């Protein structure tokens, strides 16, 4: 990676990424809106500040790994990868289309730079644990595995199998980020299948937990730095995000979990994003 962006530049980048998420989803005519918009700040921080990676050498053997466990949020990853230089932004308009490398859910073998194949929920953390164990066996002590997870997917038993394993082996080279936006397809997470107290759950499995405002760029970058300093536990960053963040009529509304905007809605959404003038203020400030 070249020179790091300033905080203001990162925040501006996150707006541009949101704009391209809206455009590509509208063009695709299907896909998930709320999650990707809520995750835009986290993905911007990851690809433009946190991760050790090289878009020109996606197989570089000393790169950090980023896994997306809740594969339905992949539009935010595609858009951020395109902005980071993995491929031309024009390709974003092929999202979900026949013959595209940008599959509806991510496939590792289709697009260089993707590290896993996901969609069916609850498996990303297990794969992260396998990678973290592999890095230890390979004596790669300066690499990390980052894994972005949904909150709804933590209904899956597979997640807690992985949580136990990472706790047992004290895999401090895993930095997991939960997109805690409190929605899933059928409604609010606490109605569908209550997850709180999520922090205590992860702590009781032997994890170091950091809670942040996941739409605050500075908080995200600080939390990742803190996480890398933890010596003896895997790390869970519970990132409180606003689903649909940046688009007024989508925010907090679980109906936007699995829907794309139509043309009129996309126009309105882009207007919303531009009215922010490159600044998304944290609701928690």
């Amino acid at each position, binding site marked *: 990676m070249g020179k790091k962006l300033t905080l203001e530049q990162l925040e501006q980048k996150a707006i541009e990424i949101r704009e391209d998420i809206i455009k590509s989803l509208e063009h695709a005519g299907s896909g998930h809106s709320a999650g990707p918009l809520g995750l835009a700040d986290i993905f911007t921080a990851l690809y433009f500040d946190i991760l050790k990676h090289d878009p020109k050498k996606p197989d570089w053997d000393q790169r950090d*790994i980023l896994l997306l466990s809740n594969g339905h949020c992949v539009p935010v990853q595609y858009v951020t990868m395109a902005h980071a230089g993995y491929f031309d932004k024009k390709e974003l308009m092929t999202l979900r289309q026949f013959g595209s490398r940008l599959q509806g859910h991510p496939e590792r073998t289709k697009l260089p730079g993707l590290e896993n*194949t*996901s969609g*069916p929920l609850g*498996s990303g953390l*297990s794969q992260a644990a396998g990678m973290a164990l*592999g890095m230890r066996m390979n004596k790669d002590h300066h690499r990390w595995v980052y894994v972005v997870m949904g909150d709804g997917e933590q209904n899956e038993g597979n997640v807690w199998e*992985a949580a136990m394993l990472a706790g047992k082996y004290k895999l401090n080279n895993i930095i997991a980020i939960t997109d805690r936006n409190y929605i899933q397809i059928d409604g609010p997470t606490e109605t569908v299948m209550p997850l709180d107290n999520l922090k205590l759950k992860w702590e009781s499995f032997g994890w170091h937990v950091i809670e942040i405002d996941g739409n605050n760029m500075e908080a995200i970058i600080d939390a990742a730095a803190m996480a890398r300093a933890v010596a003896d536990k895997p790390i869970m960053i519970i990132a409180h995000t606003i689903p649909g963040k940046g688009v007024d009529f989508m925010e907090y509304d679980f109906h936007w979990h699995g829907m794309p905007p139509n043309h009129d809605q996309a126009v309105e959404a882009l207007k919303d994003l531009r009215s922010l003038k490159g600044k998304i203020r944290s609701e928690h400030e």
Partner: protein
Amino acid sequence: MSNLHLIEDVLAKDIEKIPTRKGFGKGLLEAGKRDENVVALCADLTDSTQISLFRDAFPDRFVEIGVAEQNLATVGSGLAAMGKIPFVSSYAAFSPGRNWEQIKTTVALNDVPVKIVGAHAGLYTGADGATHQMLEDIALMRVMPNMVVVVPGDALEAEKATLALAEDKRPAYIRLAREATPVLTTEKSPFKIGKAYVYAEGADVTVISTGTMTYQAMVAAEMLFKDGIDIEVIHCPTIKPLDAVTILKSVHKTKAVITVEEAQINGGLGGAVAELLGEEYPVPLKRLGVRDAYGESGKPEELLHKHGLTAKHIAMAAHHMMDKKG
């Protein structure tokens, strides 16, 4: 067939019997010595899957997953992504029985070289009963694109198959039996992934068998010889990719086929051969195996008898097939 180096006398009363899982354990230990990237994972069944030999030799390359088969497959996927060749083992009833989707998404579709080791598969699981007698594993794994499916015939072949899979870059499933079964092959017998072997030559009926059932087919060949019927026994340790060339060559000659497996014939070896013959060379076919039923507690011999999978049953089926041919 001399170049196959089989044992001299399949009817010998003192024929050596070893469980295929023991051959796997030995093969994995050797694979671990040959390649430091070979790693092993187990879901709380380390001794009965015989992965304990590897664990004791290479403790740093062994991961105890606990009773968590979904995690077993997916942690294996992560290790493979880091350049490892993971052998992930449990009972077949649980892996791939419970974690099929994880295997599909994170191993097969993801195309990483994880080796799924399904122990205690089939009727040889005996007394444990229906829940543990995994009969659907061949069908489950065979329908998965990218997946290799291997069912060794005896302990020596299981050892060779394990070494071959360790050197192969594809995702794979290997099916193992619990009880000791006769050893038909010798150290010199060949094994290649994707190859079927003509164990006995004959022009009357082709009998295609897999796993431990090949022993029964070979005994049936001896019985039938006395009746004046020459069956051609094809041992088919790789169900996928199926060795269509060897099978079709034989069937062109015999024009009648019997398949034998201690698994569901629906989707199993019987299903695979039926699909091949249906498309390429339709001839009379009899599939011996479990016919849309679950297992139950009992001695393996009792279960094989109930499901018509002894040498006598195979011989009887061959007689019927000869009648059909006219």
